[in-house]
């Protein structure tokens, strides 16, 4: 049968069977709306939350510290009994075949204070700062300044600020004092002064030894080890030497070790512990969290699939009723010369068209609802660093997938009963109609 002939029959059937057509299209549309929304939620959960878990609890990264000796609430790091994290230790770590990267974290060993202005308010706060290599934070650096050392006397110092620090401001200070809340774009590129050696809190300050450094915020970090601010390692080394002279320590507070393969995870931990180091891995935590998130996403998706299954039953029943009503029509078409294939094609085209229309409407509504919900939630919820940047996946691919699913589902759901009908002898169909 020619395509134009199929269109001829389809147009008339669909137009003149308004009630049944609307029921079928409506059922498909509602099912696809629910499924699309559930799938969008599950995908958002997986992509957004898992990505944050990956950043906060990197599975291939071990945090290595000098071993502490815990006595009650006190913890000591007795150098005679445990290894120190010297640059040599870091080099030795980097030489291990199982280790891919070593990122030392050098603490600023004197008080430091940030001074700046925000929305017309002058503010200052004591601050903790660490020096880290650029490789460690390259994915989080967004400012044009980059994360490179340049003479602090003549250029700004690039600074990464902890997202949790921004959270504290937004959820505490800004809420309490009615200050504007900070977003990524409002923070990145902002300048402030770091007063190295100065403090509002500490009494151990030498007023004659305070150094002003102009800073530019070049990014925000989720890394919980970098609570405070992080700057290129060379700055901290220089400030420590300037402040403490020959007594300045070159030892690292901790070293982030990235292992090459997950299979080496246990072996590396055992090796480093045998060196007298304390090793903290994130793998188990990350896995538990991932399992929980995947489980939640699966449950959400199962709800969507349940809706789809219920809709499939409704759709199959509706089509079964339509087929029952149309036995005579099928019998007649066959009796006047339609082949099984042509009859099947005609009726299948009808169910596929209904599924296409229902799927497009349902998934389109869900897609629009997702966009709207994301925009409303973004405005309505307080900004905090662990919040997903979106709650429902808006990808057009999901829309296309749902439409294809509806079409394939419609075809699969109706094809067996159509085939059973067209295989029967026309006289039997006519007699039963």
């Amino acid at each position, binding site marked *: 049968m020619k395509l134009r*002939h199929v269109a001829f029959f389809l147009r008339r*059937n669909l137009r003149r069977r308004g009630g049944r057509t609307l029921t079928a299209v409506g059922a498909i549309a509602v099912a696809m709306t629910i499924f699309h929304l559930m799938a969008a939620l599950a995908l958002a959960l997986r992509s957004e939350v898992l990505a944050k878990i990956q950043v906060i609890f990197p599975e291939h990264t071990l945090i290595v510290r000098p071993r502490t000796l815990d006595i009650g609430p006190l913890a000591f790091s007795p150098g005679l009994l445990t290894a120190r994290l010297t640059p040599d230790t870091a080099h030795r770590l980097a030489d291990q075949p199982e280790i891919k990267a070593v990122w030392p974290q050098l603490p600023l060993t004197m008080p430091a204070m940030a001074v700046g202005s925000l929305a017309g308010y002058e503010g200052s706060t004591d601050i903790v700062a660490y020096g880290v290599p650029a490789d460690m934070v390259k994915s989080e650096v967004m400012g044009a300044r980059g994360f490179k050392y340049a003479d602090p006397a003549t250029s700004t110092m690039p600074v990464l600020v902890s997202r949790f620090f921004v959270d504290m401001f937004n959820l505490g200070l800004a809420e309490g004092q009615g200050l504007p809340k900070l977003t990524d774009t409002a923070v990145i590129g902002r300048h402030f002064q770091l007063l190295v050696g100065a403090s509002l809190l500490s009494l151990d300050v030498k007023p004659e030894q305070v150094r002003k450094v102009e800073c530019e915020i070049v990014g925000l970090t989720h890394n919980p080890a970098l609570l405070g601010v992080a700057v290129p390692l060379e700055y901290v080394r220089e400030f420590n030497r300037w402040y403490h002279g020959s007594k300045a320590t070159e030892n690292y507070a901790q070293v982030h070790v990235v292992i090459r393969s997950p299979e080496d995870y246990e072996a590396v931990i055992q090796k480093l512990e045998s060196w007298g180091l304390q090793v903290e891995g994130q793998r188990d935590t990350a896995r538990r969290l991932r399992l929980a998130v995947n489980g939640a996403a699966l449950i959400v998706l199962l709800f969507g699939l349940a809706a789809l299954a219920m809709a499939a039953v409704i759709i199959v029943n509706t089509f079964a009723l339509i087929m029952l009503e149309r036995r005579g029509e099928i019998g007649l*078409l066959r009796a006047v*010369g339609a082949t*099984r294939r042509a009859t099947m094609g005609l009726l299948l085209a009808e169910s596929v068209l209904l599924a296409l229309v229902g799927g497009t409407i349902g998934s389109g509504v869900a897609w629009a609802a997702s966009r709207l919900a994301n925009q409303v939630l973004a405005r309505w919820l307080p900004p905090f660093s662990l919040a997903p940047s979106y709650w429902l996946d808006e990808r057009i691919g999901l829309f296309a997938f749902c439409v294809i699913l509806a079409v394939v589902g419609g075809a699969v759901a109706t094809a067996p009963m159509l085939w059973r009908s067209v295989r029967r*002898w026309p006289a039997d169909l006519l007699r039963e109609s």
Partner: protein
Amino acid sequence: MAGETIRLINIWLTYASSGTAGEPVLRGIDLDVQAGEFLAIHGRSGSGKTTLLHMIGGILPPTKGEVVVGSHSLFSLNDLDLSAFRNRKIGFIFQSYHLAPTLTAVENAMVPALLAGQSLAQARKRAMETLNEVGLSDKADARPAEMSGGQMQRVAIARALVNDPAILLADEPTGNLDAQTGVEILALLGRYHLERRLTVLMATHDSSVEMHATHQLYLTGGQLQPLRSGDDQAFAERSHEANP
């Protein structure tokens, strides 16, 4: 298209009921119909007249036996060839019309032409010509629900004739019509038989068909018997059914 010969060879038919074979409806029927013949088959309700026409039309296979039309043994054809046979060679007029409720008169009449591969315009033109011949061109755009029984039967005749078939099978075409309309429909079919030299097989209770039929048979007990001249058995039974 000139008529075709029809041969039924030892035709048996038993309807299966709940998985078990029931009583045979047709019991070893042999029949030869010459091209251009008008054969009327009489018989009581449930005697198997419709079943016999369905077999000749290729829409119901016998339990046993062979149906040969022209040079083709129908039920040995594959689906494609059997469908083409139904479409090109057979015009079927059903007692209850079997018009598609979603299509207008002209659209119903177009269906076989479309299935034959004609374009929409060609099919519509041919269907309009046929509707005109059966005197229903003024109802071309009416749907079945908007037509009388006689008008619906005329649409069914137009649909049966639209592909210019060799064989016209009419299953009690006057069964649902009033007497006057029945006479008109029979006259119409008689005219087509003469003008187009069609082979016509008609299952009927209607005695007035004798004006048009070249042969008449009586189906009883699953077998065909000649309807003898002056033998009014069939009509008597019909009268008995109508006025028990």
